[in-house]
């Protein structure tokens, strides 16, 4: 590059930069600045001084200073005053923790004549509100879990070329952090907290404003349901890093994508702002597309684009529903007290605005608003579960994806569908959810039976496991559709258990594929004679998957049936027959692979089949231990989700009556 090119480059850069500078002088107007814009308090309460400064050129008249509703323990006392240009005054904000609460989020509102601030739409007349955030004991734990993998994604890319082994260790170390944090979360999570304890029964909250022009908030928080899913995600991801050890093509790219995927998954389970949720939901798609498409099997391109298109088709429907919900939400304030005409806050939408969405006379495309939106959201989530008839992407994606990615797909991604239904469909549109309950139960049963029958017919072991996932996710749908405490608990239990069990199954399939380079069930036989440890894990995982009492799979299924039977008798009986077929295809496949005589004709050289390596055992043992413990003692998960589920059930049944009677709120 010679000089004139450089000059030109600098000029172009200056042009580009100056396009964004829109500074303008405001003549003769007051301007209020609140310092600091975020005021943080400790857990035990305290006082803080806030400066109100007039940086404008005219006197600023402050009408009053108050704390946004609900006060949540914050208070401020101050009357009207006038601040001269360039002068400042201070107000004192006090925080006294409410009983039983460790966190609080509020806003300081300053009503003044500074027209650059928006008008509060809820009060008559024009009043300009400047706001500052008040936060007591915000938690950074969830942010850490979401953003450490994201940082790890960048870190991995900076590992020097050719050091593939180092990349793997870095990825393992990065994935271990959220896993450790998830365990910490699991231990520190207060099981006694419920709706009645305030903060909508959430813990480890972080709540601030992200994009004020569209009232989008950065809102992380967990209840029991989220904790169980976050824990599952962190563990499955850690195990999947172990299962990815054999990757040899573009190692850096693989682990960068992997960690980005983990960040996306974590974000989905932590986000409580609908927009934020959607962003994470979509962010997760990109790495998945590349992970299947680059590192997948022979038909990887087809599988990758099919997965991407199916999920995107679902999520754009979700996007429309999201926008429709937003514009029908009530006027409120953002968490920092700034006035907002609408809101994306999922908790607010659930517990304040749900009756609005269900109100009679509100229509969309000529149909009842709540039902149309419910269906839009449900299709988005049902594709992810995947529910019949939206399931066809799953066998392709699972079969073509590399082992670790199949583990993630089945272990975590499918749960996002059911999580979304519980959190968003049931939360925001409880009346419509009850309306659709029977359909959900029927589709769930179809999933169970159809998945099982398809699994019977498979020659490819991985495809069999893929169809077993469809079948097992059906139980979650049936449990959720029952709208009973037992059914809900069963559904969440099943989500968690399926995540752990199916991770083992896919790792086991990967192990055999690594050795034989085929997964065709009929080409094997007598594997137990050659690989006894493998056979033991295989048997254990298959027994857990078919629902053997004493292992965790059984608990989920039995809770679902117990919860659903009083509500849908015929459907539950049909669903329960699925257990028989499930047992049948599992046992039949196991028999063909593990038992009988070694298939000499196909595999004359037994040395290709060494037993499990230490690394492989290490990826299997954590999941096996969880499966065994939860099989005998499911309380850790049930206690965790119990309060959240009973609150959700209470919420749904409270609005069920309202929907049935079509009461206008």
């Amino acid at each position: 590059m010679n000089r004139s090119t450089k000059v030109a480059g600098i000029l172009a850069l200056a042009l580009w930069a100056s396009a964004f500078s829109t500074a303008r002088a405001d003549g003769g107007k007051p301007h209020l600045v609140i310092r600091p814009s975020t005021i943080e308090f400790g857990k035990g309460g305290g006082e803080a001084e806030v400066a109100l400064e007039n940086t404008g050129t005219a006197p600023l008249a402050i009408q009053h200073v108050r704390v946004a509703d609900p006060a949540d323990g914050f208070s401020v006392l101050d009357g009207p005053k006038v601040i001269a240009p360039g002068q400042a005054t201070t107000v004192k904000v006090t925080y006294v923790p409410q009983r039983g609460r460790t966190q609080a989020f509020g806003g300081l509102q300053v009503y003044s004549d500074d027209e650059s601030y928006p008008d509060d739409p809820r009060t008559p007349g024009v009043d300009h509100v400047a706001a500052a955030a008040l936060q007591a004991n915000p938690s950074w734990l969830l942010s850490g879990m979401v953003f450490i993998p994201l940082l790890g994604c960048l870190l991995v890319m900076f590992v020097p070329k050719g050091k593939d082994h180092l990349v793997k260790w870095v990825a393992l170390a990065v994935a271990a952090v959220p896993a450790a944090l998830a365990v910490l979360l699991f231990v520190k999570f207060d099981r006694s907290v419920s709706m009645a304890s305030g903060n909508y029964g959430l813990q480890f909250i972080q709540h601030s404003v992200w994009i004020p022009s569209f009232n989008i908030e950065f809102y992380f928080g967990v209840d029991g349901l989220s904790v169980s899913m976050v824990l599952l995600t962190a563990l499955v991801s850690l195990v999947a890093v172990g299962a990815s050890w054999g990757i040899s093509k573009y190692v850096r790219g693989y682990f960068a994508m992997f960690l980005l995927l983990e960040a996306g998954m974590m974000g989905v389970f932590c986000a409580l702002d609908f927009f934020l949720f959607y962003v994470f939901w979509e962010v997760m798609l990109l790495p998945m597309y590349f992970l299947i498409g680059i590192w997948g099997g022979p038909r990887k391109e087809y599988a990758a684009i099919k997965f991407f298109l199916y999920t995107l088709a679902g999520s754009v429907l979700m996007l429309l529903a999201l926008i429709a919900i937003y514009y029908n939400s009530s006027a409120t304030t953002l968490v920092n007290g700034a006035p907002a005409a609408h809101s994306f806050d999922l908790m607010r939408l659930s517990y304040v605005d749900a009756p609005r969405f269900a109100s009679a006379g509100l229509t969309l495309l000529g149909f009842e608003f709540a039902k149309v939106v419910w269906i839009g959201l449900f299709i988005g989530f049902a594709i992810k579960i995947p529910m019949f008839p939206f399931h066809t992407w799953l066998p392709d994606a699972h079969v073509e994806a590399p082992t670790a990615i199949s583990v993630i797909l089945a272990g975590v991604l499918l749960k996002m569908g059911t999580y979304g239904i519980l959190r968003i469909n049931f939360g925001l549109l409880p009346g419509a959810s009850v309306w659709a309950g029977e359909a959900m139960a029927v589709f769930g049963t179809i999933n169970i039976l159809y998945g099982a029958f398809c699994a019977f017919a498979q020659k490819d072991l991985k495809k069999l496991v893929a169809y077993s996932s469809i079948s097992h996710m059906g139980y979650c749908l049936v449990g959720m559709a029952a709208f009973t405490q037992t059914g809900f608990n069963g559904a969440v239990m099943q989500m968690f258990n399926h995540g752990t069990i199916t991770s083992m199954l896919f790792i086991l399939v990967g192990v055999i594929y690594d050795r034989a380079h085929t997964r065709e069930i009929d080409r094997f036989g007598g594997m137990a004679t050659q690989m006894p440890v493998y056979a033991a894990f295989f048997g254990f995982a298959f027994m857990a998957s078919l629902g053997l009492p004493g292992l965790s799979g059984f608990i989920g299924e039995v809770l679902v049936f117990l919860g659903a039977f009083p509500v849908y008798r015929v459907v539950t009986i049909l669903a329960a027959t699925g257990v028989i077929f499930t047992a049948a295809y599992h046992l039949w496949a196991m028999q063909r692979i593990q038992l009988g005589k070694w298939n000499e004709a196909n595999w004359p050289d037994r040395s290709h089949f060494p037993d499990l390596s230490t690394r492989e055992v290490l990826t299997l043992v954590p999941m096996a231990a969880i499966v065994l413990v939860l099989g005998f003692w499911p309380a850790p998960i049930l206690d965790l989700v119990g309060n959240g589920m009973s609150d959700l059930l209470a919420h749904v049944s409270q609005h069920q009556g309202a929907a049935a009677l079509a009461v206008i709120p």
Partner: protein
Amino acid sequence: MGGDLTIALDNVQSLRYFAPELILSVGILAILVADLVVGKPDRKRSFGVAAVSLAIALVATLATMDGRARGLFGGLIARDPFTDFFKVLFIVTSALVGVAALRSRDAIEYRPGELQDKESGEFYALLLTSTIGMFLMAAATDLLMAFLSLELVSILSYILAGFKRRDRKSSEASLKYVIYGGVAAGVMLYGMSLLYGISGSTNLSTIYQAVAASRSTLVLVIAVVLCMAGFGYKIASVPFHMWCPDVYEGAPTPVTAFFAVGPKAAGFALLLRFFNGAIPEQIHTDLFANSPWPLVLGLIAAATMTLGNLAAIGQSNIKRLLAYSSIAHAGYLLLGLCSFSADGQRAILLYLVTYLFMNLGAFLVVLAMSDAGLGEEIADYRGLGMRAKFPALVMAICLFSLTGLPPFAGFFGKFYLFAALIAKGGSLNVALALIGILNSAVSLYYYARILRAMYFDKPASEAPIVAAPIHAWNMGAMAVATLGMWIAWTPLVGWVNASMAQWYPRAQTIVTAALR
């Protein structure tokens, strides 16, 4: 909604506010004179002059920008925040295209063995003249001026499209462009004459008043639909899109990049001003129960995006594919006008900003690659993710953004467009939003064909492809803007709101939002 708040200026007073155009005119003359006087034509010198004049024009624009609306030259053109917004947009576009053309062998005929590029001066002069034309399109408040500026941009576009004189495709593109342009201009002129017949004036605000008072609905609808021919041709909407794929494929790549962003944005500026300035949303209805405009525009928008997306699926040439994709994007952008709301029109402006970066980014990658000797077929891009990591990454970012996936800029732009439709409500708007959003799911399919070629397919050769540094910087800037626009989103929204304030004052919308 007429231009009542405008400060009218006489010809001499106007000059101060016409400075950006004047500066560019001086730049054009300087480039041409320098080629004659200073010595042999030199690409870098021409670019330098062009860049300096664009920079001064930008400064002049920003310096005379005070948020007030002025009518210049007896109401022929306006200088208001809306114009300023587009001026900045056009300057950025032209500067980026200018930088891209600096290294392009494709733009300016390249003859090995010769050090100078004979025609470079003409290229940059034409680029600057187009920029003036686009300035005037965004500023026109008179039908006559609208037509003249549109023709100015069109005629320059014909020349730019055919810039590679010895290339058959380029010549073909130019001829097709001329013929379609001529027909569209004629039809539009007929529509304008009808409008003149209704109102007796060519001034937009006079037309507004006359139309609001008259009852001749059918003539008005016909006149507006005929005028839409001209605008539709400029923004490449159905049924005036046919020129687009051929011209985009045949024209030199920097020119294509320019066409895809600059004149399209100018067309939208003119369209917005036409509908806001001259045509009342509600007209006296003899024939129609409701205002006919949402339906007319909605049909055009739905047809445009559906056709663009479906036709793009079958393309094998990247420039043609991107041409169809830009047709589809014209459809999305039109959705913003269908809702006839402040939110919708602001969404158009926001989307144009995101579109500028993501679409230009995609074209810049094509340019950098063809400059480095790669073909323009999708098949040529096989394994690009391994052969040219950075350009492939930029391409991927731009394609995801064009699809509308978060956290890329295109998602936020699309979100605002669809949000405006749903906020307005009504079955037509919701149905349009549904069509639009399903279309963006369809669009993934063909964008993913490029992604697939770049990342999943095996390359024909392993040899790395190196992009010229200036292209790399340019592409990097586009990628950063596309990826990080959400950081600057709130100020951007503020700027857009200020730009639309003359038609939609801010306070009013907040109140209506609360009342809804």
